[in-house]
């Protein structure tokens, strides 16, 4: 192989658009036409059911649309009201932030712990992984209904039954405001850790064994191996788990709607103690018909998730550079 570096050629000027170059487009299009045609059904559905509603909701966020009468343009009034004059939104935002921090942190930590505990291909580990993954493949509606029964104040409520075995008094789980967010976090961690575990197991198994062997020869303890090999090499997987959990946590709806809904016009539980942003959005849109305002809530949520996810990704990159 020659090591002599050839003199760098001067950058060619952009060639003028010639008829020959234009002609090249035709075979390219002809060659890829089947691909584009196969994409077409998806693109049509994507545009009809995602792009169109999305842009429609952006327009509605600047109107006073009530679902029936034609929308009237109100400028930034909806956003101004949301941020300066809406105590329920602040309550929902506060609850959501608490829920996201607790839920994402605990879910990720538990998922990693489970992955470390059950990462091999032994029957025991496979069985345990299956058990922990089960909530992810079960109907969430069914699960939340069951959680509602578990925390029921009646004698058939499992939580109170267990408390009773130990001589404890019944607790009104769902009507004690201080317990609302912790209950939602508990349900979320229980349901989400198994999914995170599977992702972490895939990440763990991709780490070369040689690294651990070399570290062991160098006398590194298990903790140092974990800290200096496992965690750094799991960073992309961890980032994925964190970002997806974070987005999911910000969008929590079903658990609040099913477990805490007490009346037709009240989706946030007692004293709005379980009110999150998406249930609040639903309440404003489909409870109070303020669809323009609800669209403003939706776009505010999008901006929040976008900012938080971007900061998280940047932070991960910075940590990697360190």
């Amino acid at each position, binding site marked *: 192989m020659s090591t002599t570096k050839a003199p760098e050629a001067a950058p060619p000027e*952009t060639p003028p658009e010639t008829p020959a170059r234009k002609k090249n487009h035709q075979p390219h299009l002809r060659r890829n036409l089947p691909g584009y045609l196969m994409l077409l059904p998806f693109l049509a559905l994507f545009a009809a059911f995602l*792009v*169109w509603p999305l*842009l*429609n909701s*952006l*327009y*509605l966020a600047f109107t006073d649309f*009530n*679902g*029936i*009468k*034609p*929308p009237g343009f109100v400028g930034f009034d909806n956003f101004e009201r949301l941020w300066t004059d809406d105590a*329920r939104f602040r309550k929902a935002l506060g609850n959501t932030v608490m829920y996201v921090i607790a839920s994402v942190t605990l879910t990720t930590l538990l998922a990693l712990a489970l992955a470390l505990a059950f990462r091999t291909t032994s029957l025991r580990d496979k069985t345990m992984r299956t058990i922990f993954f089960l909530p992810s493949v079960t109907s969430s509606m069914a699960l939340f209904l069951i959680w509602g029964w578990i925390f029921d*104040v*009646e*004698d058939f409520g499992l939580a109170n039954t267990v408390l009773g075995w130990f001589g404890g008094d019944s607790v*009104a789980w*769902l*009507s*004690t*405001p201080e317990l609302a967010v912790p209950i939602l976090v508990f349900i979320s961690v229980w349901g989400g850790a198994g999914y995170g575990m599977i992702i972490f197991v895939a990440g763990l198994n991709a780490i070369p064994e040689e690294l651990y062997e070399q570290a062991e020869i160098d006398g590194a303890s298990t903790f140092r191996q974990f800290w200096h090999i496992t965690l750094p090499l799991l960073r992309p997987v961890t980032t994925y788990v964190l970002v997806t959990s974070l987005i999911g946590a910000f969008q929590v709806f079903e658990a609040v709607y099913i477990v805490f*809904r*007490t*009346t*037709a*016009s*009240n989706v946030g539980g*007692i*004293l*709005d103690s379980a009110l999150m942003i998406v249930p609040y959005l639903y*309440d404003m849109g*489909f*409870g*109070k*018909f303020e669809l323009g305002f609800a669209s403003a809530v939706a776009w505010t949520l999008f901006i929040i998730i976008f900012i938080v996810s971007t900061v998280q990704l940047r932070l991960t990159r910075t940590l990697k550079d360190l």
Partner: protein
Amino acid sequence: MNPARKALRTLLAAALAAAVLAASACTTSTPQTETADSSEPAHLVFWNTGGDEEVAVLRAVADLYIAAHPGTTIDIQAVAWADSHAKILSAATAQQGPDVISGGLSWGNEFGQLGGMLDLREFGIVDEVKPLVAPGSWKSVESTDGAVYGVPMDMTLYLFYYRSDLLAAEGIAPPATWADLTAATEHFKGKGVDNPFVMTWSTLSWLQYTNFLKQAGGDWYTDDCSAVTVNTPEGVSALNYWADLHRKHGAPNEEPDLASGLESGDIVMANGGNWNLSGLDVSHPDLVGKWDVSVLPEGPAGAGSFIGGRVLGAMSYTKFPAQAADFIKFFYSDEAVAALQQAAKANGFLWISPRAELVDKLDTTDTAKTALKTTLQTAEGPPNCNGWDKSSPDIDKLLQEVVLNDADPAEKLGEIAALLTENLTG
């Protein structure tokens, strides 16, 4: 990528987005209705808010109507309470869906003022129906400007349930006043029953508070909806008493299973909906002969309670407005009410028609009939004033703050009054 091409693509994407947004702004539609004579054949779709079991009951009325109107068809579909509000709104927005709907008693005004329901005065049925309906129920459906977007379909009343055998064993008469109620509650608490009195049907909500507000002599608004009146000494007295039932006298903050509680004796007294009249003995045969029912205990100003039920209305976009209105009117005929009561009986529940004089024809005990008739004399539905539906969920929170956080009742009623006033005039 060539920067010029990249810029062009960005420009194209932005232009497309702008075009879609502009198109979105133009997507408004207006109701398309065809006027027709009520005797002409029609295909009516009826969304009934409630369970599947009620479809069979309503079918009885529909079949009678169809027999009298050859060529007409009526498709009755059940929509669960939890989904119905949003589904009807979606239908109104899309301008297609049911022709006739039933829903919460205040929904007619709510949807009507948004433009989603027909004003039934235009079809001449209000003059015929209004004299037949219990006044407390009618007041809720008539808008302050006189419009009637729906008429009551049935009624739901609060009644006072109690274990007659347990009260008799202690030598206690069924509580007739607030003082009697707290005395009986404390008596059974002294006997080791933790929650002798419970409040079912929307515990910790404005519905329950309304019972006590009326009994104390207060109300949410003036009769003509010109002012909010809840922040009065009567309102404070009612709120104090209601909150104390929870805070001091053991009434649970969550809605318990009434039938199981009565059967086990964990619940001695309760307020609850009239649907329990037919359900208790059926679901818990051991309770037969051990319970009874009366009107809610009176407060300082006498009797009073909230009356619920469903409203029956026609959607503004229906292609058969005259036929829909005629079908609604038919619900008030003697033959329709008789068919409803009979079909309901066959399905194990009571149909309480807005025609109060027909309570006597119900298949229930004499004490239950007396309780229903007495309650109907003073019960009133949800306020028909502007902004009520918008305010009510927030009112729940403010009331809950008194019960759960020991907030000052007068202060919270002041906040409720401010909220109601803002939405009344806003």
